[in-house]
């Protein structure tokens, strides 16, 4: 290009932009026809688009719409630029040539002014600004719309490259400078996004394009381009990209197996969850039909199902089938799927999600099995089982109910059994059940007589388990009833038997004791005879104690102690027992003493506790050699009072330890001694202590003495500790 023309052009940039809009049309048409072939639809489309683009003075806007690469368009743009310039030159020559014809010239000027107005309007409508930078003198021209895009009124400032750079966000200034520099050096057109801060302080994203005009020697003359506010577009794009990324990472991360398949059941996509579910990598499955890893019995059903559903344009849910894991085992997978549609609305495949329900299936199977077992057991047992739903008052009973009570007994809700229960127990049982239901307890128990249909009475032991709502109210109660008539009768017989036997034993024993007592009082009794009489009295006394122990045990075991709990000070009680036992201890030269710290009283029956302490101390005296030491200690810990007696006697063999508190048990090393014992003493101690809510235990090593201890709940009276 002639440098003079180029220079002239550079001085008149606005006109330059305005004028070629119409002049370019034939050039663009020519170019496009050459490129795509005349008359081709593509070329026509391009031509139309070019026309629009040129009318707007924004070639590259069009580029963006068609997503044509800048590289592909660059030669076209350059060619166009050249043609623009040529056309301009030709136009000016024509104008000059016809200068004489003033009206013609005026018509041209009017046309140019119209074109200019149209361009301004078009830019305003499209919100695309144009600009031009005279590289040689540095002057910059902005179109009115460019001013507006930068938050300015048209002409408000004198534009320059520096003023423009002031608008560019600091983060993007480097990018802008590099891009411009690159274009100046290479002549390549540019396009970039940059953040700007508008004059009104608002931050926007601008999309700018530009191209360089050079002279024939290749020196840069002019750079011109467009700018456009794309904030909304970019923000929407970003949001869409983020949504997509989020969705993708969700699909990749979820434990559900997400897949797509075509209509023939061939996998087209699988997320990585397949690996944890069935052991395959997604790549191993994609492209293969499902039936390769479906259980053969299920494959046919699945394929046929897909075929039918596809025809009906439906998806599915809750399908459970067996899939073969890579390790050869089968897993139950439950799957849901929706159809995927092609552009024409036809179904092209399915998109679905599957999860492993093997554990659930197994649990269901186990439950079914356990249910069957329960029903078998419920039928087989002689006990009655019942299940009472308190909300609906529905009552289920097993077959044992009719068998036990008589076939005519219809099951009623459990709280309506009052009239079946013996009058002696009815109110107590009903009251106890009501109190239980109102409490937060879980289990309940009662024994009572129940009337059979034939009028006879059965002793019943009934146990219940309640299931409560979150607020603690009873929702459901399950119970069992056992016929304990035989047990009750034998208990009664045993109790009577023991009472009778003890009476029958005690009467002759009393006679013997009293006669021997009288005999011992006879004056002038020979010494030998007196000794024999005393020995007989001692034996009689032992027999009396044995009978007493037996009676106490029977009473404690039957739970009919008649115990009268009261606060008992163990220290005082122990001192009193020690006083009683001082004689036998002194006989064996034993040191019998007590170390007691101040402890609170315990709640127990005085007589029974006295008996327990007597038994423990008597044992210590009996099984500790002459000259030994026996020490009682009292301590308080954790709301309990701990009583213990330590001796340095013969100790207890390890294997005997677990049996010490059993009835009639005597350790072998105790039985070998002369010491008399019945095997009832420790058993009685255990019954007494446990009856009072305590615990008894023993620590011992054979040959090193023993420690027997019990603990009972402490009683705190007005916060004071009694000594």
């Amino acid at each position, binding site marked *: 290009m002639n440098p003079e023309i180029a220079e002239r052009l550079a001085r008149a940039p606005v006109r330059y932009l305005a004028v070629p809009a119409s002049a370019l049309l034939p050039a663009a048409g020519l170019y496009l026809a050459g490129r795509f072939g005349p008359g081709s639809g593509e070329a026509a489309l391009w031509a139309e688009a070019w026309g629009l683009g040129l009318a707007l003075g924004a070639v590259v806007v069009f580029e963006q719409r068609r997503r044509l690469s800048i590289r592909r368009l660059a030669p076209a743009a350059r060619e166009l630029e050249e043609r623009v310039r040529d056309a301009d030159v030709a136009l000016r020559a024509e104008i000059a040539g016809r200068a004489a014809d003033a009206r013609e010239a005026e018509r041209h000027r009017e046309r140019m002014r119209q074109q200019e107005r149209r361009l301004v309007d078009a830019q305003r409508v499209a919100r695309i600004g144009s600009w031009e930078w005279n590289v040689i003198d540095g002057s910059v021209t902005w179109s009115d719309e460019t001013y507006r895009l930068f938050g300015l009124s048209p002409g408000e400032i004198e534009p320059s490259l520096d003023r423009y750079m002031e608008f560019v966000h600091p983060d993007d200034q480097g990018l802008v400078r590099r891009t411009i520099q690159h274009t100046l050096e290479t002549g390549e057109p540019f396009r970039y996004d940059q953040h700007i801060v508008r004059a009104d302080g608002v931050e926007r994203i601008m999309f700018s394009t530009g191209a360089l005009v050079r002279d024939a020697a290749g020196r840069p003359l002019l750079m011109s381009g467009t700018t456009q506010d794309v904030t909304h577009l970019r923000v929407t794009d970003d949001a869409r990209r983020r949504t997509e990324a989020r969705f993708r990472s969700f699909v990749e991360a979820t434990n559900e197996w997400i897949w797509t398949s075509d209509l023939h059941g061939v996998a087209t996509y699988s997320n990585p969850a397949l690996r944890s579910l069935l052991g395959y990598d997604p790549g191993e499955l994609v492209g293969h039909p499902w039936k390769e890893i479906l259980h053969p019995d299920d494959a046919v059903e699945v394929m046929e199902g897909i075929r039918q559903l596809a025809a009906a344009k439906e998806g599915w849910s809750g399908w459970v089938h067996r899939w073969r894991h890579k390790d050869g085992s089968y897993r139950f997978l439950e799957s849901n799927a929706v159809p995927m549609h092609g552009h024409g609305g036809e179904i092209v495949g399915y998109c679905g999600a599957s999860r492993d329900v093997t554990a659930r299936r197994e649990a269901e199977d186990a439950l079914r099995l356990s249910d069957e077992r329960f029903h078998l057991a419920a039928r087989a047992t002689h006990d009655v089982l019942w299940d009472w739903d308190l909300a609906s008052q529905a009552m289920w009973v097993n077959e044992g109910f009719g068998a036990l009570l008589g076939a005519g007994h219809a099951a009623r809700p459990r709280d309506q059994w009052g009239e079946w229960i013996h009058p002696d127990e009815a109110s107590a049982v009903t009251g106890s059940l009501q109190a239980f239901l109102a409490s937060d307890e879980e289990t309940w128990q009662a024994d009572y007589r129940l009337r059979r249909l034939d009028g006879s009475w059965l002793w019943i032991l009934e146990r219940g388990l309640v299931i409560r709502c979150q607020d603690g109210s009873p929702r459901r109660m399950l119970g069992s009833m056992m016929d304990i008539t035989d047990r009750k009768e034998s208990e009664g017989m045993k109790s009577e038997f023991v*009472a009778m036997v*003890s*009476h029958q034993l*005690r*009467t*002759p*024993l*009393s*006679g013997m*004791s*009293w*006669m021997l*007592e*009288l005999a011992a*009082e006879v004056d002038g009794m020979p010494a030998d005879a007196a000794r024999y009489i005393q020995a007989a009295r001692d034996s009689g006394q032992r027999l*009396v104690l044995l*009978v*007493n122990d037996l*009676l106490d045990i029977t009473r404690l075991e039957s739970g*009919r102690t*008649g115990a009268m709990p009261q606060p008992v000070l163990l220290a005082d009680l122990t001192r009193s027992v020690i006083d009683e036992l001082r004689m036998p201890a002194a006989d064996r030269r034993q040191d019998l003493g007590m170390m007691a710290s101040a402890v609170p009283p315990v709640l127990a029956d005085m007589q029974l506790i006295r008996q327990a302490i007597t038994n423990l101390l008597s044992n210590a005296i009996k099984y500790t050699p002459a000259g030994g030491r026996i020490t009682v200690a009292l301590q308080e810990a954790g709301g309990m009072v701990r009583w213990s007696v330590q001796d340095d006697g013969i100790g207890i063999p390890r294997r005997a330890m677990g049996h010490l508190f059993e009835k009639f048990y005597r350790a072998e090393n105790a039985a070998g001694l002369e010491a008399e014992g019945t095997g009832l003493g420790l058993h009685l101690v255990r019954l007494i202590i446990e009856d009072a809510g305590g615990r008894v235990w023993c620590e011992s090593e054979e040959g090193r003495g023993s420690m027997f201890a019990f603990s009972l709940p402490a009683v705190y009276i007005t916060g004071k500790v009694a000594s």
Partner: protein
Amino acid sequence: MTNAGRVLLVEDDKFLRRACEASLRQRGFEVIAATDGDEGLRLARLLPPPDVVLLDLLMPRVPGIEVLRALKAEPDTAGIPVLILSNSSRDEDRRLAAELGATGYYVKATLSLKDLASQVARLVEGYGTAG
């Protein structure tokens, strides 16, 4: 030996009765003995009334507890202290005896004759001029 008091002993077991009688007589008490509840009631109503009644519970025909009830129901005998001598250590027996007004309850097998005599002596003294 002075008369320490008049004791009515109601006991069906002859060895116990003999031993008890012997022991109390040795200690100066006058003892009248009955072998069952009927006889016991009859003797209790004789004059002068006994200072103390020693009463067994488990006896043929009229049980001791009925004798006690009858004694306490009659004004002439209601004031006589009654000691129950039983071999039953059942709590219900103890409770019933106490409710009916028995002064004491002893299990014979664990009671020495010496202790029994001193209990009787205390009651006789406490009963005042009856003897």
